[in-house]
């Protein structure tokens, strides 16, 4: 079986089908599917509230990385590749083709080194987690359905009522 076929099968069963994701500005279709899946693993949809996928966090990251410098862009590309390498080294499969348990084991491995990251994959996990939280926090889904902010309205800002504070022309 070819790698591409694996990705397609995997994404059909585990992640959203590739074609269901919107066009990207920076990531390839394959990278984007993996990115979306990782974001959803970090902040998943659960009984409590929708997660990173519904909030479209992948788009936040795609747009941000697109507008970043070449060095940052390369780090994201290498980071996703590092996750794939881990999957291939451990299970000889694409990350998206692994079972939920296998995927979580890999992420747990990276999360275990959060306070002292060493490898590229470990550094990438931190960057990814950071951006996922940021994107989720800044999204409407995150604000309304996760944090429960339902009223995005400004407080009434009444002007000063002291007549002696008025600036005389």
């Amino acid at each position, binding site marked *: 079986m070819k790698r591409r076929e694996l990705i397609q099968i995997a994404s059909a069963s585990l992640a959203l089908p590739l074609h269901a994701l919107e066009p990207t500005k920076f990531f390839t279709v394959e990278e984007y599917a993996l990115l979306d899946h990782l974001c959803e*693993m*970090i*902040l*998943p949809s*659960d009984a*409590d*509230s929708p*997660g990173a996928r519904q909030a479209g966090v992948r788009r936040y990251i795609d747009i941000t990385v697109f507008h970043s410098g070449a060095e940052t862009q390369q780090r994201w590309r290498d980071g996703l590749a590092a996750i794939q390498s881990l999957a291939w080294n451990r299970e000889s499969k694409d990350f998206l083709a692994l079972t939920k348990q296998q995927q*979580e084991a890999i*992420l*747990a491995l990276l*999360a275990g080194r*959060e*306070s002292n990251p060493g490898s590229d994959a470990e550094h990438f996990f*931190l960057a990814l*987690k*950071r951006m996922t*939280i*940021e994107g989720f*926090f800044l999204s409407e889904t995150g604000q309304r359905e*996760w*944090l429960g902010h339902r009223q995005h309205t400004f407080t009434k800002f009444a002007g000063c009522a002291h007549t002696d504070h008025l600036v005389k022309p």
Partner: protein
Amino acid sequence: MTGLYWDRPSKYFEGTYQIQCASGVQPLQLAIRNLPGFGSSLKRELREYNAMHVNMNMQGMLGYSAKIFTDLDPEREDRFGVPLPRVHLHYSESDVAMARDMAATCEELIRLSGGQVHSTPQVSAQTLVIDGNHWAGSCRMGTDPKSSVVNTECRTHDVANLYIGDASVFAHYPEKNPTLSNIALAWRTSDRLVERFRKGEV
């Protein structure tokens, strides 16, 4: 907490400092510093601790010192061939003592608020951590053209009709944010300028 009050000078350092306290929605900082892992538990904890983050910023006065100055780099240039500025910063013993007092005050405030202090920073001139700056003092105000750039009216000693209107004229850095002083200085400078203009001096 002596450094907090202008009328209660410290024996150990000159000047005063201020504390800025803030709390806010900072799930990102929390996540990076305190909340490990991923998944539903992370999501739950992020929300639990959301808006429960409080931070204290200490802002200290930096006194006038001949060792603090800006000059032009003799070697490095920007792409237009203009020499790059070099900022020379120096912390005196008094500055370090003030920083120590700041840390002690923060601890005291945490304890008085019912919190627990888990670690205390070791403060020395080498480890003075600055996480934010208000740039000021690169065109100091003064009466001596040898040690200052502008006179007390914000007019440069060297060029007769050049006025400078921002925080660069500060002779030393106060423990407050600079904007109000900037506005006051700009206001005063404009008044003087108008006055001189009417007299036909400008």
